[in-house]
Protein backbone atom coordinates (compact mmCIF):
# COMPACT_ATOMS: atom_id res chain seq x y z
CA UNK A 1 0.00 0.00 0.00
CA UNK A 2 2.68 2.44 0.98
CA UNK A 3 4.80 1.40 -1.96
CA UNK A 4 1.91 2.14 -4.25
CA UNK A 5 1.52 5.52 -2.70
CA UNK A 6 5.19 6.32 -2.95
CA UNK A 7 5.50 5.04 -6.47
CA UNK A 8 2.52 7.12 -7.56
CA UNK A 9 4.12 10.20 -6.09
CA UNK A 10 7.37 9.51 -7.85
CA UNK A 11 5.66 8.77 -11.14
CA UNK A 12 3.79 12.02 -10.99
CA UNK A 13 6.95 14.01 -10.64
CA UNK A 14 8.28 12.62 -13.90
CA UNK A 15 5.94 14.51 -16.22
CA UNK A 16 6.92 17.68 -14.50
CA UNK A 17 10.44 17.21 -15.80
CA UNK A 18 9.02 17.54 -19.26
CA UNK A 19 7.33 20.80 -18.53
CA UNK A 20 9.28 23.41 -20.32
CA UNK A 21 9.56 26.93 -19.08
CA UNK A 22 9.44 25.88 -15.47
CA UNK A 23 12.07 28.36 -14.52
CA UNK A 24 10.16 31.30 -15.89
CA UNK A 25 7.04 29.94 -14.27
CA UNK A 26 8.77 29.68 -10.95
CA UNK A 27 10.21 33.11 -11.23
CA UNK A 28 6.94 34.57 -12.28
CA UNK A 29 5.10 32.92 -9.45
CA UNK A 30 7.61 33.47 -6.71
CA UNK A 31 9.88 36.29 -7.60
CA UNK A 32 7.57 38.84 -9.08
CA UNK A 33 5.74 39.76 -5.93
CA UNK A 34 7.22 42.81 -4.26
CA UNK A 35 8.06 40.88 -1.14
CA UNK A 36 9.92 38.21 -2.99
CA UNK A 37 12.26 40.13 -5.16
CA UNK A 38 14.33 43.22 -5.36
CA UNK A 39 12.84 46.25 -3.84
CA UNK A 40 12.79 48.29 -6.97
CA UNK A 41 12.47 51.90 -6.14
CA UNK A 42 9.79 53.73 -8.00
CA UNK A 43 11.36 55.53 -10.85
CA UNK A 44 9.07 57.65 -12.96
CA UNK A 45 11.84 58.24 -15.48
CA UNK A 46 12.35 54.55 -16.18
CA UNK A 47 8.63 53.96 -16.09
CA UNK A 48 8.03 56.18 -19.10
CA UNK A 49 11.25 55.53 -20.93
CA UNK A 50 10.73 51.76 -21.17
CA UNK A 51 7.17 52.06 -22.41
CA UNK A 52 6.19 51.62 -26.02
CA UNK A 53 5.13 55.23 -26.24
CA UNK A 54 8.75 56.21 -26.58
CA UNK A 55 10.53 56.41 -29.87
CA UNK A 56 13.14 53.69 -30.16
CA UNK A 57 16.16 55.84 -29.50
CA UNK A 58 14.70 57.05 -26.21
CA UNK A 59 13.41 53.60 -25.33
CA UNK A 60 16.91 52.15 -25.38
CA UNK A 61 18.19 54.46 -22.71
CA UNK A 62 17.22 52.52 -19.57
CA UNK A 63 18.70 49.26 -20.79
CA UNK A 64 21.91 50.96 -21.87
CA UNK A 65 22.11 52.62 -18.51
CA UNK A 66 21.71 49.28 -16.75
CA UNK A 67 24.95 48.08 -18.32
CA UNK A 68 26.85 51.11 -17.11
CA UNK A 69 29.10 51.70 -14.17
CA UNK A 70 26.75 54.43 -12.98
CA UNK A 71 24.00 51.84 -12.56
CA UNK A 72 26.35 49.62 -10.58
CA UNK A 73 26.94 52.49 -8.21
CA UNK A 74 23.29 53.47 -7.83
CA UNK A 75 23.56 56.64 -9.87
CA UNK A 76 20.33 57.10 -11.76
CA UNK A 77 18.56 59.55 -14.08
CA UNK A 78 17.84 62.40 -11.73
CA UNK A 79 21.36 62.41 -10.30
CA UNK A 80 22.59 63.83 -13.61
CA UNK A 81 19.53 65.20 -15.37
CA UNK A 82 17.58 66.50 -12.41
CA UNK A 83 13.80 66.21 -12.14
CA UNK A 84 11.76 64.22 -9.64
CA UNK A 85 11.92 60.44 -10.07
CA UNK A 86 9.07 59.78 -7.67
CA UNK A 87 6.47 61.99 -9.28
CA UNK A 88 5.70 61.40 -12.95
CA UNK A 89 4.17 64.86 -13.34
CA UNK A 90 7.27 66.57 -12.06
CA UNK A 91 9.80 64.13 -13.45
CA UNK A 92 10.88 66.60 -16.12
CA UNK A 93 10.04 69.82 -14.37
CA UNK A 94 12.51 72.70 -14.26
CA UNK A 95 11.27 73.44 -10.77
CA UNK A 96 12.76 70.17 -9.64
CA UNK A 97 16.02 70.86 -11.34
CA UNK A 98 15.48 69.08 -14.63
CA UNK A 99 18.10 70.13 -17.15
CA UNK A 100 17.56 67.62 -19.94
CA UNK A 101 20.30 66.44 -22.23
CA UNK A 102 23.32 68.75 -22.35
CA UNK A 103 24.50 70.42 -25.52
CA UNK A 104 27.80 69.26 -26.96
CA UNK A 105 29.81 72.12 -25.47
CA UNK A 106 28.08 71.89 -22.11
CA UNK A 107 28.86 68.24 -21.54
CA UNK A 108 32.00 68.79 -19.41
CA UNK A 109 30.14 70.94 -16.89
CA UNK A 110 27.29 68.44 -16.91
CA UNK A 111 29.57 65.57 -15.93
CA UNK A 112 31.68 67.86 -13.81
CA UNK A 113 28.79 68.37 -11.41
CA UNK A 114 30.12 65.27 -9.70
CA UNK A 115 33.49 64.67 -11.28
CA UNK A 116 34.84 67.94 -9.99
CA UNK A 117 38.55 67.24 -9.98
CA UNK A 118 38.53 65.89 -13.50
CA UNK A 119 36.60 68.87 -14.82
CA UNK A 120 39.22 71.20 -13.42
CA UNK A 121 42.08 69.40 -15.11
CA UNK A 122 40.17 68.98 -18.34
CA UNK A 123 39.38 72.67 -18.65
CA UNK A 124 43.06 73.48 -18.29
CA UNK A 125 44.06 70.87 -20.83
CA UNK A 126 44.49 71.07 -24.59
CA UNK A 127 41.25 69.17 -25.07
CA UNK A 128 39.28 71.51 -22.85
CA UNK A 129 40.65 74.62 -24.51
CA UNK A 130 39.89 73.22 -27.94
CA UNK A 131 36.29 72.68 -26.96
CA UNK A 132 35.83 76.09 -25.42
CA UNK A 133 37.57 78.05 -28.14
CA UNK A 134 36.35 76.26 -31.23
CA UNK A 135 33.28 74.32 -30.07
CA UNK A 136 35.02 71.36 -31.61
CA UNK A 137 37.15 68.99 -29.69
CA UNK A 138 36.56 66.05 -27.43
CA UNK A 139 34.11 66.29 -24.58
CA UNK A 140 33.53 63.58 -21.98
CA UNK A 141 31.17 61.60 -24.18
CA UNK A 142 33.67 61.47 -27.05
CA UNK A 143 35.83 59.09 -25.06
CA UNK A 144 33.55 57.66 -22.42
CA UNK A 145 30.30 57.31 -24.34
CA UNK A 146 26.84 57.88 -22.96
CA UNK A 147 23.58 55.98 -22.98
CA UNK A 148 22.85 57.01 -26.52
CA UNK A 149 22.56 54.57 -29.39
CA UNK A 150 24.08 51.30 -28.35
CA UNK A 151 26.58 52.70 -25.92
CA UNK A 152 26.90 52.71 -22.21
CA UNK A 153 29.43 54.28 -19.90
CA UNK A 154 32.00 51.70 -18.97
CA UNK A 155 34.44 51.73 -16.13
CA UNK A 156 37.33 53.88 -17.31
CA UNK A 157 40.34 51.97 -18.57
CA UNK A 158 43.52 52.64 -20.48
CA UNK A 159 42.22 51.19 -23.73
CA UNK A 160 39.88 54.11 -24.17
CA UNK A 161 43.02 55.61 -25.63
CA UNK A 162 43.14 53.85 -28.96
CA UNK A 163 43.92 54.61 -32.57
CA UNK A 164 40.35 54.61 -33.77
CA UNK A 165 39.24 57.17 -31.25
CA UNK A 166 42.17 59.54 -31.02
CA UNK A 167 42.77 59.88 -34.76
CA UNK A 168 39.43 61.59 -35.19
CA UNK A 169 41.23 64.87 -34.68
CA UNK A 170 44.97 64.38 -34.82
CA UNK A 171 47.64 61.79 -35.39
CA UNK A 172 47.82 58.86 -33.05
CA UNK A 173 51.44 59.48 -32.22
CA UNK A 174 50.92 61.80 -29.26
CA UNK A 175 48.14 59.65 -27.87
CA UNK A 176 50.46 56.69 -28.02
CA UNK A 177 53.16 58.51 -26.09
CA UNK A 178 50.64 59.35 -23.39
CA UNK A 179 49.39 55.79 -23.27
CA UNK A 180 52.92 54.55 -22.81
CA UNK A 181 53.51 57.03 -20.01
CA UNK A 182 50.41 55.81 -18.22
CA UNK A 183 50.89 52.16 -18.92
CA UNK A 184 53.06 50.87 -16.11
CA UNK A 185 51.27 52.68 -13.36
CA UNK A 186 47.88 51.58 -14.64
CA UNK A 187 49.10 48.01 -14.85
CA UNK A 188 50.33 48.08 -11.28
CA UNK A 189 47.08 49.53 -10.05
CA UNK A 190 45.16 46.84 -11.92
CA UNK A 191 47.28 44.13 -10.35
CA UNK A 192 46.73 45.52 -6.89
CA UNK A 193 42.99 45.69 -7.46
CA UNK A 194 42.99 42.06 -8.55
CA UNK A 195 45.00 41.11 -5.51
CA UNK A 196 42.53 42.77 -3.20
CA UNK A 197 39.79 40.77 -4.88
CA UNK A 198 41.70 37.56 -4.32
CA UNK A 199 42.34 38.37 -0.69
CA UNK A 200 38.68 39.03 -0.17
CA UNK A 201 37.83 35.65 -1.61
CA UNK A 202 40.23 34.01 0.79
CA UNK A 203 38.62 35.71 3.74
CA UNK A 204 41.01 38.58 4.41
CA UNK A 205 39.01 41.73 4.17
CA UNK A 206 40.97 44.80 3.30
CA UNK A 207 38.41 47.58 3.02
CA UNK A 208 40.62 50.00 4.90
CA UNK A 209 43.48 49.43 2.51
CA UNK A 210 41.38 49.70 -0.60
CA UNK A 211 40.62 53.36 0.07
CA UNK A 212 44.22 54.56 -0.49
CA UNK A 213 44.30 52.50 -3.68
CA UNK A 214 41.12 54.07 -4.96
CA UNK A 215 42.41 57.49 -4.04
CA UNK A 216 45.66 56.87 -5.88
CA UNK A 217 43.84 55.58 -8.90
CA UNK A 218 41.47 58.54 -8.92
CA UNK A 219 44.35 60.97 -8.62
CA UNK A 220 46.17 59.28 -11.46
CA UNK A 221 43.14 59.39 -13.71
CA UNK A 222 42.52 63.02 -12.88
CA UNK A 223 46.15 63.71 -13.77
CA UNK A 224 45.70 62.14 -17.18
CA UNK A 225 42.96 64.58 -18.04
CA UNK A 226 45.53 67.38 -18.21
CA UNK A 227 46.74 65.53 -21.33
CA UNK A 228 50.23 66.69 -20.37
CA UNK A 229 52.75 63.91 -20.96
CA UNK A 230 55.60 65.61 -19.14
CA UNK A 231 53.49 66.16 -16.08
CA UNK A 232 52.48 62.53 -16.05
CA UNK A 233 56.08 61.41 -16.41
CA UNK A 234 57.22 63.67 -13.61
CA UNK A 235 54.64 62.41 -11.23
CA UNK A 236 54.98 58.74 -12.05
CA UNK A 237 57.62 58.22 -9.39
CA UNK A 238 55.40 59.65 -6.68
CA UNK A 239 52.65 57.36 -7.71
CA UNK A 240 54.99 54.41 -7.72
CA UNK A 241 55.91 55.20 -4.13
CA UNK A 242 52.29 55.39 -3.07
CA UNK A 243 51.59 52.12 -4.78
CA UNK A 244 54.47 50.31 -3.17
CA UNK A 245 53.13 51.16 0.27
CA UNK A 246 49.84 49.63 -0.74
CA UNK A 247 51.63 46.64 -2.20
CA UNK A 248 53.21 45.93 1.15
CA UNK A 249 49.79 45.69 2.71
CA UNK A 250 48.73 43.27 -0.01
CA UNK A 251 51.76 41.10 0.61
CA UNK A 252 50.98 41.12 4.29
CA UNK A 253 47.50 39.90 3.43
CA UNK A 254 48.87 37.02 1.38
CA UNK A 255 51.23 36.06 4.15
CA UNK A 256 48.24 35.92 6.49
CA UNK A 257 46.40 33.61 4.10
CA UNK A 258 49.39 31.30 3.96
CA UNK A 259 49.70 31.33 7.74
CA UNK A 260 46.08 30.32 8.07
CA UNK A 261 46.53 27.47 5.68
CA UNK A 262 49.58 26.27 7.54
CA UNK A 263 47.90 26.50 10.91
CA UNK A 264 44.82 24.56 9.91
CA UNK A 265 47.06 22.10 8.07
CA UNK A 266 48.91 21.57 11.32
CA UNK A 267 45.63 20.92 13.13
CA UNK A 268 44.63 18.51 10.37
CA UNK A 269 47.89 16.65 10.82
CA UNK A 270 47.33 16.42 14.57
CA UNK A 271 43.87 14.99 14.20
CA UNK A 272 44.91 12.50 11.57
CA UNK A 273 47.62 11.38 13.97
CA UNK A 274 45.09 11.10 16.76
CA UNK A 275 42.74 9.10 14.54
CA UNK A 276 45.53 6.68 13.67
CA UNK A 277 46.53 6.35 17.30
CA UNK A 278 42.99 5.65 18.42
CA UNK A 279 42.61 3.16 15.62
CA UNK A 280 45.74 1.31 16.66
CA UNK A 281 44.71 1.40 20.28
CA UNK A 282 41.52 -0.31 19.30
CA UNK A 283 43.20 -3.24 17.69
CA UNK A 284 43.57 -6.01 20.11
CA UNK A 285 45.25 -9.30 19.50
CA UNK A 286 42.24 -11.50 20.06
Amino acid at each position, binding site marked *: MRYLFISLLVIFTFPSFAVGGYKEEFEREFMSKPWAGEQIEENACIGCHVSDKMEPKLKNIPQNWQMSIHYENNVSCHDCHGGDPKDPDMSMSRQRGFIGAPKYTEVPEFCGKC*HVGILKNYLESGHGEALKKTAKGPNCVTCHGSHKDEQFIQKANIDIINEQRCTKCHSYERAMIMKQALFLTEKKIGELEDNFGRLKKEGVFTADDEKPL*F*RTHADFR*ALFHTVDVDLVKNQTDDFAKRLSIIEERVQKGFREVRFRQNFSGF*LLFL*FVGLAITVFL*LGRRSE
Partner: protein
Amino acid sequence: MKRRNFLKLLFAFLGSISFASFVYPLVRFLAPPGIEAKTKKLSLSKGEIPVGSAKNIIFNNTPAIIIDRADKGLVALSKICTHLGCIVEYDRAKKRLLCPCHAGVYDLEGNVLSGPPPKPLQKLPLKVEGETIVIG
Protein backbone atom coordinates in the same frame (compact mmCIF):
# COMPACT_ATOMS: atom_id res chain seq x y z
CA MET B 1 52.08 -4.46 26.06
CA LYS B 2 54.88 -2.08 25.39
CA ARG B 3 53.18 -1.13 22.20
CA ARG B 4 49.97 -0.25 24.00
CA ASN B 5 51.82 1.93 26.44
CA PHE B 6 53.55 3.69 23.60
CA LEU B 7 50.24 4.27 21.90
CA LYS B 8 48.68 5.60 25.05
CA LEU B 9 51.59 7.95 25.48
CA LEU B 10 51.33 9.05 21.89
CA PHE B 11 47.63 9.71 22.34
CA ALA B 12 48.25 11.78 25.45
CA PHE B 13 51.00 13.69 23.66
CA LEU B 14 48.99 14.44 20.52
CA GLY B 15 45.93 15.12 22.60
CA SER B 16 47.64 17.71 24.70
CA ILE B 17 49.19 19.42 21.68
CA SER B 18 45.75 19.58 20.03
CA PHE B 19 44.28 20.95 23.20
CA ALA B 20 47.00 23.58 23.45
CA SER B 21 46.54 24.52 19.80
CA PHE B 22 42.95 25.37 20.55
CA VAL B 23 43.59 27.04 23.87
CA TYR B 24 46.26 29.37 22.51
CA PRO B 25 44.08 30.79 19.71
CA LEU B 26 41.18 30.96 22.13
CA VAL B 27 43.14 33.04 24.59
CA ARG B 28 44.30 35.38 21.83
CA PHE B 29 40.74 35.48 20.51
CA LEU B 30 39.24 36.45 23.84
CA ALA B 31 41.97 38.74 25.06
CA PRO B 32 41.03 42.41 24.91
CA PRO B 33 42.71 44.30 22.10
CA GLY B 34 46.00 45.78 23.15
CA ILE B 35 45.79 49.37 24.25
CA GLU B 36 46.22 51.26 21.01
CA ALA B 37 49.85 52.23 21.11
CA LYS B 38 49.58 55.72 22.39
CA THR B 39 49.50 57.54 19.13
CA LYS B 40 51.97 60.29 19.05
CA LYS B 41 50.10 63.44 19.68
CA LEU B 42 50.67 66.32 17.41
CA SER B 43 51.16 69.73 18.90
CA LEU B 44 51.29 73.02 17.17
CA SER B 45 50.96 76.58 18.22
CA LYS B 46 47.79 78.52 17.68
CA GLY B 47 49.65 81.06 15.66
CA GLU B 48 50.27 78.57 12.87
CA ILE B 49 46.65 78.62 11.92
CA PRO B 50 45.77 81.70 9.93
CA VAL B 51 42.80 83.36 11.57
CA GLY B 52 39.54 82.34 9.97
CA SER B 53 41.37 79.88 7.77
CA ALA B 54 42.75 76.37 7.99
CA LYS B 55 45.92 74.35 8.05
CA ASN B 56 46.63 70.98 6.53
CA ILE B 57 48.46 68.53 8.75
CA ILE B 58 49.41 64.89 8.65
CA PHE B 59 48.27 63.03 11.72
CA ASN B 60 49.18 59.37 12.09
CA ASN B 61 49.89 59.06 8.39
CA THR B 62 46.47 60.39 7.51
CA PRO B 63 45.92 63.75 5.93
CA ALA B 64 43.84 66.02 8.13
CA ILE B 65 42.89 69.65 8.41
CA ILE B 66 42.51 72.04 11.33
CA ILE B 67 39.92 74.68 10.62
CA ASP B 68 39.43 77.87 12.52
CA ARG B 69 35.72 78.41 12.39
CA ALA B 70 34.71 81.94 13.26
CA ASP B 71 31.87 81.07 15.59
CA LYS B 72 32.59 77.58 16.79
CA GLY B 73 36.29 77.59 17.35
CA LEU B 74 38.83 75.08 16.17
CA VAL B 75 38.07 71.66 14.76
CA ALA B 76 40.30 68.90 13.40
CA LEU B 77 38.86 66.70 10.68
CA SER B 78 40.27 63.83 8.70
CA LYS B 79 40.46 64.72 5.03
CA ILE B 80 39.64 61.22 3.84
CA CYS B 81 36.25 61.16 2.15
CA THR B 82 34.02 58.47 3.61
CA HIS B 83 32.74 57.51 0.15
CA LEU B 84 35.72 55.88 -1.55
CA GLY B 85 38.73 57.45 0.12
CA CYS B 86 39.69 60.48 -1.96
CA ILE B 87 41.08 63.55 -0.17
CA VAL B 88 38.62 66.39 0.31
CA GLU B 89 39.48 70.02 -0.32
CA TYR B 90 38.65 72.97 1.84
CA ASP B 91 36.57 75.71 0.30
CA ARG B 92 37.01 78.73 2.51
CA ALA B 93 34.58 80.94 0.66
CA LYS B 94 31.69 78.53 0.82
CA LYS B 95 32.66 77.22 4.26
CA ARG B 96 32.60 73.62 3.24
CA LEU B 97 34.75 70.69 2.22
CA LEU B 98 34.41 69.25 -1.26
CA CYS B 99 35.57 65.88 -2.57
CA PRO B 100 36.86 66.15 -6.16
CA CYS B 101 36.07 62.56 -7.05
CA HIS B 102 32.29 62.48 -6.87
CA ALA B 103 31.39 65.88 -5.40
CA GLY B 104 30.69 64.81 -1.85
CA VAL B 105 30.10 67.96 0.20
CA TYR B 106 30.67 68.29 3.93
CA ASP B 107 30.09 71.18 6.31
CA LEU B 108 32.72 72.37 8.74
CA GLU B 109 31.51 69.91 11.37
CA GLY B 110 32.22 67.07 9.00
CA ASN B 111 28.55 66.31 8.34
CA VAL B 112 27.51 65.28 4.85
CA LEU B 113 25.60 68.00 3.03
CA SER B 114 25.19 66.30 -0.33
CA GLY B 115 26.66 63.64 -2.57
CA PRO B 116 27.45 59.98 -2.12
CA PRO B 117 29.40 59.87 1.19
CA PRO B 118 27.66 57.58 3.66
CA LYS B 119 29.14 58.92 6.89
CA PRO B 120 30.47 62.19 8.27
CA LEU B 121 34.18 62.95 8.20
CA GLN B 122 36.07 61.52 11.11
CA LYS B 123 36.69 64.11 13.80
CA LEU B 124 40.08 64.05 15.46
CA PRO B 125 40.32 64.82 19.18
CA LEU B 126 41.54 68.37 19.60
CA LYS B 127 42.46 70.17 22.78
CA VAL B 128 43.55 73.72 23.25
CA GLU B 129 46.06 74.24 26.05
CA GLY B 130 46.89 77.86 26.29
CA GLU B 131 48.70 78.80 23.14
CA THR B 132 49.16 75.20 21.96
CA ILE B 133 46.81 72.93 20.11
CA VAL B 134 47.14 69.20 20.74
CA ILE B 135 45.68 66.66 18.33
CA GLY B 136 45.17 63.09 19.48
